[in-house]
């Protein structure tokens, strides 16, 4: 018999939303005189949700925005009270549901560490002991005496995450941690997850990212519009989640990911003006294993370089930042006038997951970088198949009997 860490039994949550919220006494008096009663819209954020999380389990909660994930989390953390039903928690719980709560921009990094650790239940002595580790993990040694308002958002998140994982509580709640931070930091987070999982901690992970749910979670819960759609294997949960997204997926633009933080550099004689993915027919950045991926590059040639031959180098990296493919067009001679270059992968054999494409435009000798677009395009490969390793080759087993 497995021990239950969190028992959620038949929980519903109703929010009374006043149609016109009267925050002032006068407003109340006026509306009192007018109708006698304030009007409310009753919103049912969660409907009869019922499940349990076992000790040592890595449990995922997934669902689209507005699905009720945060409400559920707040109730587990004791911030909201359920309207109906009960939640029982065995063991101590991280009191946060979000990273960096309680961070104050006017305080220095150091002061914020102490304040945040106090919120987590550590006293000054205990915090002082962990302080170096926290700072080291966040890679912020040089910045601790600066005010938090001078930190970049990435730095703040690193610091917050670094503190949050020190929590000595039995149950750790993590909401959308992986949505922030750069690739290197995300990789670090994943390592921490692996360690936590190995250490047998009970973890509740709330995320949109099905790859991580499948990678880490033992079980997952799918919420949609307050309804509990499914509780069980992460693989199944991911499928159900994907089916929820069918409508929205079609609309997704296959444009270069519009993140302004991306690194771009080069000598700029020839530059990439657009990089788009398609499956050969439609723009998309979600591909099925066995399908086709096409990358369409449009180039712009600057005044004196109208006839410069170029080489294109691509680096397709997986989520751990490992380059899994590095195709390169060697026939530079033909490209001296080209303004469009396409690249295609047939019969995609990359394992399911998220990938990025780094695009480099070289001169004909492959020495000068004319344009460099780091992790510019993102795409996802999906499949129901389990793939161990990096990709699935066209292979077969043969059994020979003598």
């Amino acid at each position, binding site marked *: 018999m497995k021990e239950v860490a969190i028992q959620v039994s038949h929980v519903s949550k109703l*929010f009374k939303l006043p149609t016109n919220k009267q*925050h*002032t*006494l*006068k407003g*109340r008096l006026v509306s009192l005189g007018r109708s006698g009663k304030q009007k409310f819209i009753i919103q049912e954020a969660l409907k009869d949700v019922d499940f349990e999380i076992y000790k040592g389990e890595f449990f995922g909660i997934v669902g689209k925005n507005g699905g009720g994930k945060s409400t559920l989390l*707040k109730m587990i*953390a*004791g*911030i*909201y*009270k359920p309207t109906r039903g009960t939640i029982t928690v065995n063991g101590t*719980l991280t*009191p*946060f*549901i*979000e990273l960096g*709560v*309680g961070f*104050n921009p*006017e*305080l220095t990094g150091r*002061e914020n560490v*102490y*304040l945040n650790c*106090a*919120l987590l*239940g*550590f*006293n*000054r002595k205990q915090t002082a002991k962990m302080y170096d580790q926290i700072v080291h993990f966040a890679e912020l040694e040089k910045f601790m005496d600066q005010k938090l308002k001078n930190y970049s958002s990435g730095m703040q998140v690193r610091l917050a995450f670094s503190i949050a994982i020190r929590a000595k509580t039995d149950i750790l709640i993590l909401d959308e941690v992986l949505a922030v931070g750069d690739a290197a930091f995300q990789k670090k987070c994943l390592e921490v997850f692996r360690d936590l999982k190995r250490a047998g901690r009970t973890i509740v992970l709330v995320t949109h990212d099905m790859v991580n749910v499948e990678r880490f979670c033992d079980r997952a819960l799918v919420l949609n519009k307050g309804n509990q759609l499914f509780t069980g294997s992460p693989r199944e949960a991911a499928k159900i989640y994907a089916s929820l997204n069918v409508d929205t997926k079609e609309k997704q633009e296959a444009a270069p990911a519009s993140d302004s933080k991306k690194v771009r550099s080069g000598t700029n004689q020839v530059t990439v003006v657009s990089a788009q993915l398609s499956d050969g027919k439609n723009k998309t950045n979600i591909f099925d294993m066995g399908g086709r991926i096409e990358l369409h590059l449009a180039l712009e040639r600057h005044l004196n370089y109208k006839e410069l031959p170029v080489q294109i180098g691509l680096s397709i990296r997986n989520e751990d930042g490992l380059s899994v493919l590095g195709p390169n067009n060697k026939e530079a001679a033909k490209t001296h006038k080209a303004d469009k270059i396409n690249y295609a992968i047939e019969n995609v054999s990359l394992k399911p997951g998220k990938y990025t494409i780094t695009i480099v435009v070289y001169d004909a000798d492959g020495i000068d970088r004319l344009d460099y677009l780091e992790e510019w395009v993102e795409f996802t490969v999906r499949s129901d198949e389990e793939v161990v390793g990096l990709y699935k080759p066209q292979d077969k087993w043969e059994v020979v009997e003598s």
Partner: protein
Amino acid sequence: MGLIQTAFSKKNRALLSELVKTDFKLRYQGSMVGYLWSLLRPLFMFMILYVVFTTVFPLGKGIPHYPVYLFTGMVIWNFFTEMTQQGLGSIVARGDLIRKIKIPRWMIVFSTSIGALINLGLNLIVLGVFMAADNIVPMSSIVWVPLILLEVYMFGLGVSYFLAAAFVKFRDLQFIWELFVQAGFYLTPILYPLTQIKNELYQKLIFMNPLAQAIQDARYSIVSHHESTITIHRVFEGGWYSLIPIGISIAVFVLGLLYFRAKAPEFAENL
């Protein structure tokens, strides 16, 4: 007893001290003399009032040790108003914490009261200096001062808890309370001696205010036993009525806490 032990567990004490420190750091953020302002402000105010009420309107005439007399009243009054005004906004100001972390809500209001207590301590030191400068020899009645301050603290804390919880829903409260405090400043015998009010009924009514009672008791204990430090005990000639303000303080403390406790689970949703 068990309740108080959990409330002030090691963990909670650490959090409380961080909250108080943060409040202090933030309040004097970027100012040159920093904490000194919490002393300078009442001192300047005192100087203005002292000059006005000894020269322009000589209310303080005939009151022994009028500077100390006046300052005693101001210190207690400021303690109460600072505590309640900081307390009122405390829950709303920390809305971010309340919506996202489960920390004991009472602690947020309580931490602002600790800030007020620290300022009170500083002001009491100044009061001591004033006494020495004015050659006041401490009387044995001074031992009552801690109890008087405890009463004011309980009263102020009760009011703070009530205001903090009510302010979540009624945002007018801030302005209403400001008016209340301003009116209270004149309804409480801080500038003028109670002996100026000849109507005995009015005197008794004024004494129903725990702050009036506390300030007069404190003056009686510290400054002199002159008629200007008339206490509630004297006005009611020792009857049980003289215990009413203390009863009010205790009632406000208990009711404020109960109201806060009833409203606390809804803070996260209403903020």
